């Protein structure tokens, strides 16, 4: 699973196709590989430790599949787990078997080599001579030497609907008196067998009719075959166990007390004090990007996190908890999925979550200090509207979704077109709520990857632009930034011709916000963001250009979405264009039935957004 960067990019892709064109998942992409065989055998002991073998065979269907499966990475945590490869080979189309040599099984550190994270290990298996049509096979042996959560066992298995899969089986053998909560979607359970005090449970799965992936669809977990197994009776009992593991981690040491006092000196009220402490952790504790679970579940001690000045999500949470506690403010860790899972399993598995954030009960606030750019009280889109387990009280809840009342982008663009067709302009952007988080991250990324490439992708070749990153470093509720740009020969003068709207820099796409990629149909639940967006564009024309026709001003509405387009001329050479969208979905995800109802209206909206100004 990806980490923080992955999460941010995904959001930007959803609503800002302009920002990173061409990177979105293409629907109807043929499967890159198929699962020929997947036999998983698990032997669970009474104390929750377990051994697991996996016999996996994949057939490569495309070049992308070859690229994906040429190397496999197996991660584990030394001291808790062991992993070994007992067989690995490439089976060529002609039946030739090429074994993976020991020298091609590389041991390395895991997600981070930072001190404190060096128990994370990986085995990287490099398969030889992999081509389309070949098979790669691997047999692994895994041991969970000590359960993460007391004497419990939990695992989940997901088979994505878009991957053809055959001969899939999961067999779990455990003491007969061990009780499991099972969440089974689309897998066939065989009758249990019992022998000698052990019971064997078997599930099988076959997917001979894969469904192609759909753009913006929710996580495979929410829509595909899955099997979630847990010995926990419910989420509350799991939360109690986890709380016990984190006990004493958030101890308020003299150093933590001193820092909390210093940061809140002269600041009254729990809310304001919490804000200051949250902002300090967000900005001063470097985030080590390790997905929860891959890096274990127990944080370092708050005092160590403070001394190190870095940590992963659980370290952030534990330090913030200690700082808040130093000022008498209770908080608790909260388990959440920071990808695209929007449903909670009926089997209380810890592995349904990959991230830890903070909940402050007295303020009814969820905080994610690892988001780095999230103002106090604002969650990034991928944390919003998600099911969570609150570790302090065992409550299952849902984070507030980002709605049109809290999430907004306002863009003012002013461009001047010269008589020779050159264009010069400014764009000033103000964002609040979740878009402010992601735009801060986008601008930060643009600075890293290069403004030239970014503006070429957003506005086309020939553009020269500078970006004023604005208040990117603070966590003010509103984020403001601007761009100044110049494009030579952007327009063909004299016309007649159209003025393309990308002569002005726009930080996001109205079409992407309203309609996503607008596929002909949808069969899967998909992510639909809510936001208020408006754009105000003023175009100054040279005297030798006349406006022949303006697009129609109109208001288009459908369920959850209102779009208004206004085009006027204030004088013969000045055009004023406004686009206003109010997208207020009742939930962070939308159903295929909803899409079927509104698609015709979305098509009309998309067409209206493509309208251009005719000049001569």
């Amino acid at each position, binding site marked *: 699973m990806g980490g923080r960067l992955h999460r941010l990019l995904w959001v930007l892709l959803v609503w800002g196709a302009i920002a990173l064109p061409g990177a979105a998942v293409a629907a109807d992409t043929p499967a890159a590989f198929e699962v020929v065989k997947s036999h998983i*055998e*698990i*032997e669970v002991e009474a104390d929750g430790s377990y*051994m*697991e*073998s996996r*016999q996996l065979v994949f057939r490569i269907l495309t070049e992308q599949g070859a690229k994906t499966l040429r190397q496999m990475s197996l991660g584990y945590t*030394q*001291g*808790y787990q*062991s*992993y*070994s*490869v*007992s*067989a690995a080979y490439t089976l060529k189309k002609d039946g030739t078997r090429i074994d993976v040599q020991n020298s091609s099984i*590389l*041991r*390395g*550190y895991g997600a981070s080599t930072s*001190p*404190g994270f*060096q*128990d994370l*290990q990986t085995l*990287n298996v490099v398969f030889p001579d992999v081509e389309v049509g070949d098979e790669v096979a691997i*047999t692994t*042996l895994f*041991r969970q*030497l*000590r359960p993460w959560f007391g004497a419990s066992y939990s695992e989940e298995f997901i088979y994505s609907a878009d991957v053809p899969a055959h001969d899939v089986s999961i*067999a779990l*053998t455990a003491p007969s008196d061990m009780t499991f909560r099972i969440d089974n979607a689309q897998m066939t359970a065989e009758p249990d*067998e019992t*022998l*000698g005090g*052990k019971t*064997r449970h*078997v599930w099988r799965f076959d997917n001979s009719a894969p469904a192609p992936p759909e753009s913006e669809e929710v996580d495979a977990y929410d829509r595909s075959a899955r099997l979630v197994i847990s010995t926990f009776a419910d989420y509350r009992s799991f939360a109690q166990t986890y709380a016990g593991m984190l006990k004493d981690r958030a101890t308020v040491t003299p150093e933590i007390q001193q820092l909390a006092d210093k940061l809140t000196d002269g600041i009254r009220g729990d809310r304001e004090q919490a804000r200051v402490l949250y902002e300090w952790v967000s900005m001063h504790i470097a985030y080590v990007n390790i997905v929860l679970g891959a890096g274990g579940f127990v944080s*370092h001690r708050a005092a*160590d996190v403070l001394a*190190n000045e870095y940590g992963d999500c659980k370290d952030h949470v534990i330090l913030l908890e200690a700082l808040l506690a130093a000022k008498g403010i209770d908080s608790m860790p909260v388990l959440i999925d920071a990808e695209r899972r929007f449903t909670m399993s009926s089997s209380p598995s810890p592995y349904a979550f990959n991230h830890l954030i903070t909940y402050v009960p007295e303020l009814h606030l969820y905080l994610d200090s690892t988001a780095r750019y999230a103002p106090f009280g604002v969650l990034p889109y991928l944390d919003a509207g998600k099911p969570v387990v609150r570790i302090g009280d065992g409550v299952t809840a849902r984070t507030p979704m980002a709605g049109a009342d809290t999430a907004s982008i306002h863009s003012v663009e002013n461009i001047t077109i010269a008589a020779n067709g050159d264009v010069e302009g400014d764009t000033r952007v103000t964002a609040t709520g979740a878009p402010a988080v992601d735009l801060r991250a986008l601008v930060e990324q643009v600075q890293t990857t290069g403004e030239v490439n970014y503006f070429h992708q957003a506005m086309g070749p020939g553009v020269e632009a500078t970006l004023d990153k604005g208040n990117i470093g603070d966590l003010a509720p509103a984020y403001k930034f601007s761009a100044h740009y110049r494009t030579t020969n952007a327009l063909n003068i004299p016309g007649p011709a159209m003025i393309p709207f990308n002569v002005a820099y726009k930080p996001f796409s109205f079409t992407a916000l309203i309609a996503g990629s607008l596929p002909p149909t949808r069969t899967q639940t998909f992510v639909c963001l809510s936001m208020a967006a408006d754009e105000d564009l003023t175009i100054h024309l040279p005297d030798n250009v006349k406006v022949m026709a303006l697009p129609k001003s109109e208001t288009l509405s459908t369920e959850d979405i209102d779009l208004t387009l206004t085009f006027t001329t204030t004088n013969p050479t000045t055009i004023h264009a406004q686009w206003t969208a109010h997208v207020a979905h009742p939930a962070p995800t939308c159903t295929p039935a909803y899409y079927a109802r509104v698609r015709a209206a979305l098509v009309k909206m998309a067409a209206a957004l493509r309208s251009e100004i005719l000049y001569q």
Partner: protein
Amino acid sequence: MRRSALAGIAVLPLLAAVPAKAADAAFCNAPGMTQPMPLTSHAPPPELYPPLSAMMGESGNTLVRYTVLASGIVGDTSIERSSGSLRLDDAAVAFVKAFRFKPAMLDGKPVDCSRQIVIRWSLEGSSPLSMAQIGGTPFYPTLEDFPPGAVDRHEDGTVIAMVLLGDKGTIETILPMLGSKFADLNSATVDYIRKQKIAGPTVNGVPVRAALVIRVVWSPTGRPADAAGDTGQAHQP
């Protein structure tokens, strides 16, 4: 007997050793019946041995009864005698279900009939290499570490043990998981591990409680040359 690289799996076809159940088809050697002819191999392939069973040292014999249908495929199956491992029994049934036959004939017509087969699951002869594949940090005792007389008796083998380390890096518990075929080597392994200095994981330089898999390779010839640098510890590729 066919022996796999990982472990031994043998097959013994039985035609009428066990009386048929009332509901089952007649045995294939019933009077007047032409026995079905196998069209697929009944020799278990090496990969049939479930890796987890090999890892856990599971062995035994599974007696499977199955019906060869008139269509030549295998119909009902039943475990007439378990190996003691449901996993091995399931693997035996999966193997048998893939059989194909020219069906039995009675009075010139293809008919259903019943056969039995014993799948022998044996780990004898499994090589130290396969045990080593379980993983774990390898240790190579010197000749002085061997139990009295073991070297003269040419004893060797690998013992896998789990070691629980306390928060001061001390050894709290040693749990042998998989032994060699020599009891004295197995016993000596615990004492040998206790004498070793084992570096467990640390957090911020402080040892933490941990469980490690230790692989003790008893070899009178000592540490193999190709094990140089194989400490079992992680290193950058």
